[in-house]
């Protein structure tokens, strides 16, 4: 059963080939047997999952089921789940039982999907390797000495290892797409505002977006259909009807105009990855697409701009973790200042503290214009590059990450080197556009991801392109050794 896609499982459940309870037990057993090798889960909610599975079975028998009813999945531990530990990968929230459900949590539960647990992640979503978690690093199922990517490393590893057919993730600078690429699965960051951020613990409010990780574009489309939608409780949620993301999956790609930015194929890109991407793009031409070279001249500003904007926003968002109302509190505080400083100093890990401090500095008196304002101006230039490109092409493609998965510990001591892992994904968050990563090959036995970037709210077109590619190729069906 674990080899079936979400779509196949959905059909199987509908036809009574197996029950949600059987499927859920199977997932729970696989997690119990295999997750020690990966450390992809922080919390497993076995009993609650079986209860939800039984409720789903009742709905299935009554004919009151949607495509996700009875499907087991995992939530990144950044989504508030009522009564269940929601740690954000941090000591700061190690004792935090969320008192409410995120909208994404609510929507998936209402659709009858069965949450089996919360996945490991870089602390407060800050990282590109899942090495900053308070709960220890996640291992890449393709090679346990390599990172799975981050920050949604647990969600990606769990899907790649076939522990769950799908999971939720969040993406602020690449945190769905890059781990999807490094783990050989499909990950989608929707347009900013498409998926509600209510109850999704905030890192950078103008960049964060929740989305699905799964093994196929079709599965991602089914997940997105439930996750997306206007939410009055998220003031940045966009009031726009949700497309049927499965309706046009099979549309032919004849005449699809693909843009390849020259800047995405320059220095820093591993030659093996580059070759795999070029072959993948070649496949699209066989499917009827037309390639155009485009230029995104402000691409080089994306990572620097992000490392001003994201830390600035995080310094503001994380100021709510103060040891007063919830979360970690330092022992025997002397006075209020001591309470704040030691609760935060002890509760947060190093990368989080680094980013809070960069953000605090960039926003402080005398530096705001030089850093934050400048970064916001660069952000507009980056967005304009994309808008210009989209007057000539329908989608933009390139590598998701500059290399395949790197070794655990390899980049952990050098923040700037780690930051450059997101060189192709970050601009997409700055512009708020939708982006998808799909498996497109291997280098030295490790997966390569192809990134497809679309215009605002054009997720259906991205999923269509990816689906047609997945019908013509089999990269997405490969299973890491030991997890078949």
């Amino acid at each position, binding site marked *: 059963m674990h080899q079936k896609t979400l779509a196949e499982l959905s059909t199987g459940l509908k036809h009574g080939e197996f029950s949600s309870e059987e499927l859920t037990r199977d997932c729970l057993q696989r997690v119990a047997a295999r997750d020690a090798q990966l450390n992809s889960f922080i919390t497993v909610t076995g009993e609650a999952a079986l209860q939800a599975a039984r409720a789903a079975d009742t709905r299935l028998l009554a004919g009151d089921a949607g495509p996700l009813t009875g499907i087991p999945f995992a939530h990144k531990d950044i989504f508030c789940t009522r009564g269940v530990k929601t740690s954000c990968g941090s000591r700061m929230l190690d004792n935090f039982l969320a008192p409410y459900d995120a909208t994404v949590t609510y929507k998936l539960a209402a659709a009858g999907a069965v949450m089996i647990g919360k996945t490991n992640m870089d602390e407060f979503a800050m990282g590109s390797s899942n090495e900053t978690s308070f709960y220890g690093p996640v291992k890449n199922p393709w090679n346990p000495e390599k990172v799975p990517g981050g920050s949604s490393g647990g969600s990606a590893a769990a899907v790649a290892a076939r522990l769950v057919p799908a999971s939720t993730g969040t993406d602020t600078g690449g945190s769905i797409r890059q781990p999807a690429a490094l783990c050989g699965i499909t990950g989608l960051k929707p347009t900013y505002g498409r998926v509600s951020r209510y109850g999704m613990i905030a890192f950078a409010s103008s960049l964060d977006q929740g989305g699905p990780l799964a093994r196929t574009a079709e599965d991602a489309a089914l997940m997105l259909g439930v996750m997306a939608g206007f939410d009055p409780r998220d003031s940045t949620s966009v009031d726009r009807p949700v497309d049927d993301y499965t309706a046009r999956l099979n549309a032919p790609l004849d005449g699809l105009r693909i843009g390849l930015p020259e800047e995405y194929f320059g220095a820093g890109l591993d030659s093996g990855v580059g070759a795999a991407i070029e072959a993948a793009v070649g496949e699209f031409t066989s499917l009827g697409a037309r390639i155009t070279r485009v230029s995104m001249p402000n691409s080089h500003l994306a990572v620097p701009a992000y490392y001003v904007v994201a830390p600035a926003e995080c310094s503001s968002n994380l100021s709510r973790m103060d040891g007063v109302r919830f979360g970690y509190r330092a022992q025997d505080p002397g006075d209020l200042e001591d309470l704040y400083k030691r609760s935060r100093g002890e509760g947060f890990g190093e990368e989080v503290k680094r980013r809070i401090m960069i953000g605090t500095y960039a926003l402080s008196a005398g530096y705001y214009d030089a850093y934050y304002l400048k970064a916001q101006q660069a*952000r507009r230039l980056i967005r304009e590059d994309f808008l210009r490109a989209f007057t000539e092409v329908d989608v933009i493609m390139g590598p998701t990450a500059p290399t395949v998965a790197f070794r655990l510990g390899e980049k952990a001591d050098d923040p700037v080197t780690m930051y450059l892992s997101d060189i192709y994904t970050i601009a997409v968050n700055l512009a708020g556009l939708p982006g998808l990563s799909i498996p497109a090959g291997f280098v030295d036995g490790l997966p390569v991801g192809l990134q497809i970037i679309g215009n605002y709210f054009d997720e259906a077109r991205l999923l269509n392109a990816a689906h047609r590619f997945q019908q013509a190729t089999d990269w997405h069906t490969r299973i890491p050794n030991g997890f078949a």
Partner: protein
Amino acid sequence: MTLETADVEKIAHLARLAIDPGDIPEYARNLSAILAFVEQLNTVDTTGVEPLAHPLDATQRLRPDMVTEVDEREIFQQIAPRTEDGLYLVPRVIE
């Protein structure tokens, strides 16, 4: 921009983060490296470019000024470190 010990101490204070004095040199090094990296932003002339705060260049949605939330203080305070009579307790602020 190279940060010295005093700079790191000041930023840590603003951010209300306790940093062990022994760790300050490494923070200074890493923060300085990050700031040097973001200096690349200064290679581009952005005169006259309007800053972009919201990726879709949208403005804040408003709603009527009416109470719509329900009082759930009891539930929320169940996970608080210390409370009394519906208030959160912290060390004395004013002597």
